[in-house]
């Protein structure tokens, strides 16, 4: 249900349940978790791309039929969560959104660091229309990304927005024709993958953790990470290569 491929230092995870609109059940989340383990053990991987099969749907949300089989609701949420898995990546994670990202599908995209979508993509938190609330981080990450007003509108009304509106409110960073989506994201991913993985991980940590701190504490975290990174070989390589006017070769050490 979930495919994994690797090209150079970029890993791509693909949802392959097109017949079920790439909906998430415990098996999908389980396979996702296995792939996460594989990626984290592979020291060569520096960037992850998450995308889905097909021309219309990125992920239409939680597989409700599968959810009904669970009596234990806490267990269900634990076994179905994908955002919690994505959250553990220390490297940059892209969402290449090839169509509708609905409910948990949007929550999955929100757990990524960067979101690029195709022109046909649509976005919605329709859970309330079924008497449910978002549960895989949507009420928290959407508001932090697009602001309280827009988040409340999407969560309370459950209506969908198109790619251009998603771009305007900062939900996605770039909109491209569907045929160019993967090439665009791969180009960006490979460009990022040339940087030092420690720099990328620390920059990501400083921003994510810093958002939860007071400014004073955030500045402190940034400075601590900055001085820590001066102990790495990559830092020496970066500065040496700059002086020698050549491309640096980072090894993540």
């Amino acid at each position, binding site marked *: 249900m979930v495919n994994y491929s690797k090209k150079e230092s970029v890993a791509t995870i693909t949802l392959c349940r097109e017949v079920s609109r790439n909906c998430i059940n415990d098996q999908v989340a389980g396979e996702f978790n296995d792939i996460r383990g594989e990626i984290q053990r592979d020291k060569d991987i520096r960037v992850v791309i998450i995308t889905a099969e097909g021309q219309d749907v990125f992920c239409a949300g*939680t597989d*409700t039929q599968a*959810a*009904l089989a*669970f009596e234990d*609701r*806490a267990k*269900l*949420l634990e076994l*179905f969560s994908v955002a919690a898995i994505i959250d553990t990546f220390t490297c940059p994670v892209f969402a290449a959104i090839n169509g509708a990202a609905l409910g*948990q599908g949007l929550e999955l995209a929100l757990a990524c660091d960067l979101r690029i979508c195709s022109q046909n993509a649509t976005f919605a938190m329709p*859970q*309330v*229309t*079924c*008497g*449910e*609330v*978002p*549960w895989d*981080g*949507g*009420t*928290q*990450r*959407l*508001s*932090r990304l*697009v*602001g*309280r*007003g*827009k*988040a*409340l*509108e999407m*969560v*309370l*009304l*459950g209506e969908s927005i198109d790619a251009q509106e998603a771009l305007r*409110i900062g939900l996605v960073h770039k909109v491209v024709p569907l045929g160019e989506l993967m090439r665009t994201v791969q180009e960006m991913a490979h460009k990022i993958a040339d940087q030092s993985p420690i720099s990328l991980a620390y920059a990501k940590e400083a921003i*994510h953790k810093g*958002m*939860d701190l007071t400014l004073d504490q955030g500045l402190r975290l940034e400075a601590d990470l900055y001085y820590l990174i001066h102990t790495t070989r990559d830092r020496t390589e970066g500065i040496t290569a700059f002086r020698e006017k050549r491309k640096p070769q980072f090894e993540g050490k």
Partner: protein
Amino acid sequence: MTGFDTLLYEKQDGIAYVTLNRPQFLNAYNMQMRDDLAEVLKAIRDDDEVRVALFRGAGEKAFCAGADLKEFLTAPSPVVARQIRFDRDVWGLFLSVPQPLIAALHGYVLGSGIEMALCCDLRIASEDAHFGLPEVELGIIPAAGGTQTLPRTVGRGYALEMLLTGRWIDAGKAWQIKLVNRVVPKKQLRKTVKQMAARIAAHDPDVMRCAKQAVVQGLDLPLAAGLDLERILAARFGPGSIAQKA
């Protein structure tokens, strides 16, 4: 329809309508309106029949042009005024209402007017709306939450620009900086807002309260604590819950 001196209050099909009703004074906020608003907000909060509340201004010219300056400097002392501010904490009450609140904004939306709108969850403006926090020009600062609610809605940069310059912005700019959710022609304002309220009223009211709580309370928490809050709420309304209830 229940009449207060400064407000009209109606309830229909699960929607509460609160109309600021001092059109001859551009619906300026005064002490009587403060007390009336406190009554109405408590009534909304305690009334399970109200699924969503809608705030609007009477007359053609303004939603609310700010505080009524005639009453300025009439308190016995700043100490007493401050005591009253927190004893009758109408703004804290506004922000604690569990149901979704919608503001329909037209004409002048200034000072306390924009602050009232910022206590609501969704803001819809007509094309003629103008927004501003003119307090600094009067040598004072906003005191109905504006210094806190505005940056949390539009971000630090735009909030400081509006607060420090006192300059007004029009509806288009307000939409651009996400101060309002939508801008519609003036003739369509009432209808648009009513439709939006009706859609919210059609959903399970407990789900609406949970969703609002998760977003609003969650934004005041670190992400991890916000995610915990969401999980707790989702234990009731998570995937498949409605089908399970049936």
